[in-house]
């Protein structure tokens, strides 16, 4: 039986051979982690949706450049990351960070829990882009340190130190809100 990574390669090869419908299972498989990462990186669901869609379309257009020894997720994440960075750079410096994620993923009636989640998201948005990225990749995906390093283009040591500083800073920010 094929593992996910092998299945991805088979699907990519089918796309490259002209069967564009083979791209659909890839979109279905990775839409959730990519959309989640984009949402948490940008703090805005509309922008996250646009960035995720653009990332998939760009990946499809550039499938020929995908190194099939690499994980498909790591590769497409790099595309998504560039999309998100473009969005962040496009924001006016004075523009407040959008924060439309109150109560996301929580029951509507659990107001308190929703507010706590909103504070956590706000704390995440207070981190630097580099710190936020490693926290999200480590916490919300199954990427190893090595894979995070490959996806972000920095050494493993840097990933670990960014993660450490990010979690320290998060602890301070969350303590200010009495969340830890």
């Amino acid at each position: 039986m094929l593992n996910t990574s092998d299945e991805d390669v088979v699907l990519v090869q089918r796309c490259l051979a002209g069967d564009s419908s083979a791209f659909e299972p890839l979109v279905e498989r990775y839409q959730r982690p990519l959309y989640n990462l984009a949402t948490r990186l940008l703090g805005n669901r509309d922008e996250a949706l646009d960035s995720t869609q653009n990332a998939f379309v760009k990946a499809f257009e550039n499938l020929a450049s995908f190194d099939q020894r690499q994980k498909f997720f790591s590769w497409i994440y790099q595309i998504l990351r560039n999309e998100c960075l473009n969005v962040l750079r496009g924001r006016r410096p004075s523009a407040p960070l959008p924060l439309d994620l109150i109560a996301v993923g929580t029951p509507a009636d659990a107001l308190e829990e929703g507010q706590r989640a909103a504070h956590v998201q706000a704390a995440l948005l207070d981190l630097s882009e580099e710190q936020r990225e490693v926290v999200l990749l480590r916490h919300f995906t199954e990427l190893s340190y090595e894979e995070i390093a490959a996806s972000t283009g920095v050494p493993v040591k840097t990933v670990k130190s960014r993660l450490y500083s990010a979690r320290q800073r998060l602890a301070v920010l969350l303590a200010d809100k009495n969340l830890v």
Partner: protein
Amino acid sequence: MNSKDMIHHDHAPQDTDPVADARVTDALNLLGTVEPPSELVAQVMWRTKHQSVQNNRRRQVARRNGEGSDMAKKVLIGLIGIAAAGLLVAYIGGGFPTTTGTEGTIGAAQRYNAEQIKKSDVTIENAALASFMQTDIFEKLSRDKMAVAALASPEVQAALGNAQIAAALADSTLAQALVNADVQAALANPALAQALASPELQKALVDAAANGTGLQVSGLDSQLASALANPALAQALANKDFAAALASPQLQAALANPALAQALANKDFAAALASPGLQGALASPGLGQILADSTAAQLLGAQLQNAQASALGASGAAGHREQ
């Protein structure tokens, strides 16, 4: 994914407080998972499909241009050869005309001077279309690839030209439900339109909408249930958004019109219904007025495509300038 135990600080300094660290992990777990919108896959696939069509077209044009330029080169070389041969023959045969004693007066060359095109020369006969084109809705539509493709289709124009259908589709709940392929198939199924005439089904749909649930076909009268026995239909009805949309009398009336089923058979149309551009436009009376007139509808499709092509051209040029 449960990531509570994922973080291992094998590199962390000794002063790390494990309790605080665990609390950070717990806080991050509070964020949960954000479900991507249901239309994401359909929209990406729509874009990749149209992208590949565009890429193929671009490749074909490039190939054709390549062939064309090869041919032009051959023709040019041939002409140069013929001209050189002619000059050689004329030189050898002494056929060049004399260059002296031929002085005379030659008047100014008569050139055709066309007047510049004025604004008044470019008119759009249809006043409704002309004023619609000045609106933000038109602007938004022209930037929405799916909406432009759908509105250029004669079947879609015909369906949206029907006021009842346009009004029913302007309901965002239905538009969201329509992204689901089962729902599209269900709406194109004549059994549903027939069954909707039943007061029992109408009441059940209203109850389901009030309860925020889908409709269970099995709970209906046996004759009605067997009319809706199609598995895709039953699955679609179990979708609470779809059941809520169906409770609308406007949609029930629209479904009785075969033009809707015909338009829904157009995949681009179904995907475009989820786009915010088309959603906003359907709620505008201006669009309905234009689509009710088939000539104006055709003109609108062409104007949207032109506007989109200009926008793409402008962004392409801007991209080049940036580079």
